[in-house]
């Protein structure tokens, strides 16, 4: 069948899986019409974000369960001492989002394994990329905490890039004049975050947060098509919203929050842990058009959770930890020895008692898009 161009476009727009679309592109030369940027843009906007989800990664569950007691931070660092040699060879597992995705193609076996004692942990994801931390047995956790051995990878295309240490000129000494000031890192898209600017191996940033003398400061690694660079950056959030609210919750992006990253200041307040900063609200931020962030909704935790079984006012004397993020929800726990888990639906902001089994951090991973189809083939 030789279809008219307009008909061909209509057909391709109705193929609901990007995987099927790519296969169709290979069928014959004329069908490379798919490769036009205009078509790919239209296709992307005509389909729900979940169509582009490849699946989700989660870190080794035995490792995670050892990190689970709520009194301990769920941060990715400081885990090396808990890793034994057997677990070290385990890499984060992949669960495909649909039967059309072949899980084997998303295996992380391509990550460099120059020694037996490396353990890989995903700690952020965005679009088709993952941010990993590589830890080694025998390396003290204090040393690893100075600056983690970070890698960004794209599982679908089996590419990776090691994130170098930031140049010393960007780092200030912390209050005790100790270098141990690295706090966290976030994987974000390069550019200004508009729809045309999709994260890829040649267009991403790793925003690293350090604890300075009086406040947090950030240093950003920018990967470009030709060169990579570091620069120190001001908080990208509007002034009325405090910096610590800037969020890492890409896990909740692919399904229900296509353009939203969300999280709470509680997460950050917990990290600050000095008592002078306290916020009882769980806030969800939304990316607005110019790439900035704005407060979308919030819930006052002590009030919202008052009716839940096991509630105690003292749970809120310190900010709550965020234990887990999943698609569209977070699980919170107070910083007390007692275990009391609350799940918050980020769509409705409704709170409910959380199941212990929900305690696995999920990192969504999207298909690379737009695919770098060669229009001239």
């Amino acid at each position, binding site marked *: *069948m030789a*279809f*008219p161009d*307009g*008909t061909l476009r*209509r*057909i*391709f*727009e*109705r*193929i*609901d*899986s*990007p*995987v*099927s679309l*790519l*296969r*169709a*592109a*290979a*069928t*014959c*030369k004329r069908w490379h019409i798919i490769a036009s940027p205009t078509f790919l843009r239209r296709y992307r906007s005509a389909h729900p974000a979940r169509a582009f989800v*490849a699946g989700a990664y989660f870190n080794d569950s035995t490792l995670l369960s050892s990190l689970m007691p709520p009194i301990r931070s769920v941060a990715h660092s400081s885990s090396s001492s808990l890793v034994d040699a057997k677990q070290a060879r385990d890499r984060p597992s992949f669960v495909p989002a649909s039967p*059309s995705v*072949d899980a084997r*193609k*998303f295996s992380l076996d391509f990550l460099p394994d120059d020694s037996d004692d490396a353990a890989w942990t995903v700690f952020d994801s965005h679009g088709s990329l993952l941010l990993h931390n590589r830890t080694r047995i025998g390396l003290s956790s204090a040393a690893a905490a100075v600056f983690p051995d970070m890698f960004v990878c794209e*599982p*679908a*295309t089996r590419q990776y890039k090691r994130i170098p240490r930031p140049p010393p000129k960007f780092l200030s000494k912390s209050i005790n004049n100790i270098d141990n000031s690295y706090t966290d890192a976030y994987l974000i898209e390069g550019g200004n975050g508009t729809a045309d600017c999709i994260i890829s191996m040649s267009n991403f940033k790793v925003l690293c947060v350090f604890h300075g003398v009086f406040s947090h400061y950030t240093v950003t690694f920018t990967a470009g098509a030709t060169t990579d660079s570091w620069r120190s950056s001001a908080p990208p959030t509007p002034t009325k919203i405090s910096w610590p609210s800037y969020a890492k919750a890409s896990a909740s992006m692919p399904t229900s929050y296509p353009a939203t990253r969300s999280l709470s200041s509680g997460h950050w307040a917990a990290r600050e842990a000095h008592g002078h900063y306290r916020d009882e609200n769980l806030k969800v931020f939304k990316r607005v058009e110019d790439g900035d962030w704005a407060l979308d909704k919030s819930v006052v935790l002590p009030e919202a959770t008052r009716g839940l079984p096991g509630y105690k006012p003292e749970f809120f004397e310190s900010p709550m930890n965020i234990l887990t993020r999943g698609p569209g929800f977070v699980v919170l726990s107070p910083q007390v020895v007692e275990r009391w888990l609350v799940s918050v639906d980020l769509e409705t902001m409704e709170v409910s008692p959380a199941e212990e089994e929900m305690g696995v951090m999920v990192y969504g991973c999207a*298909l*690379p898009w737009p*695919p770098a189809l*060669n229009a001239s*083939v």
Partner: protein
Amino acid sequence: MAAPESGDGNNGAARMVTLISSDNTRFEVEAAAASLSQTLQLTILDGGGGGGDGIPLPNVDSATLSKVLEYCIKHAPAAANGGAPNATAVDRAELERFDNEFVNIDQSVLYSLIMAAHNLEIEGLQSLVAKKVADMIKGKSPMEIRRTLGFPDPTPEEQAEMNAHMLEYGWAYE
């Protein structure tokens, strides 16, 4: 051919037009149904197709035209309601059932319909046949797609291109 319950009330009786297929068969149909075709709508608005004149359609044979008109007659009432915002769920379900049944056809017929819907610019029918082809493509490998759609066997060059594509986009293949 069963007429829809009512026309749009012009002069009591619905206005009729005559269409003539490539093999010279004459089809008399309500103007409202024929106007689902953007191409025909212009002619009809100009007053064409009435009386004994008829509108010749040299690119559409009678078998295809009768199929196309079956679609137009079924969809005309809903289209007259501006996409049927006030249609009941039952009406919509009935149209959906009709559509599914309608494209459950031979590939040669489907292909004729695709070309007719394209030439006559019938939006709804174009969408319907495109969806049908999309469903035939989904989940198949490039070779399976070629076979499904009756493409000739690939030339060695085409085969080489397909292999290269599969190598580059390994994640999209099993």
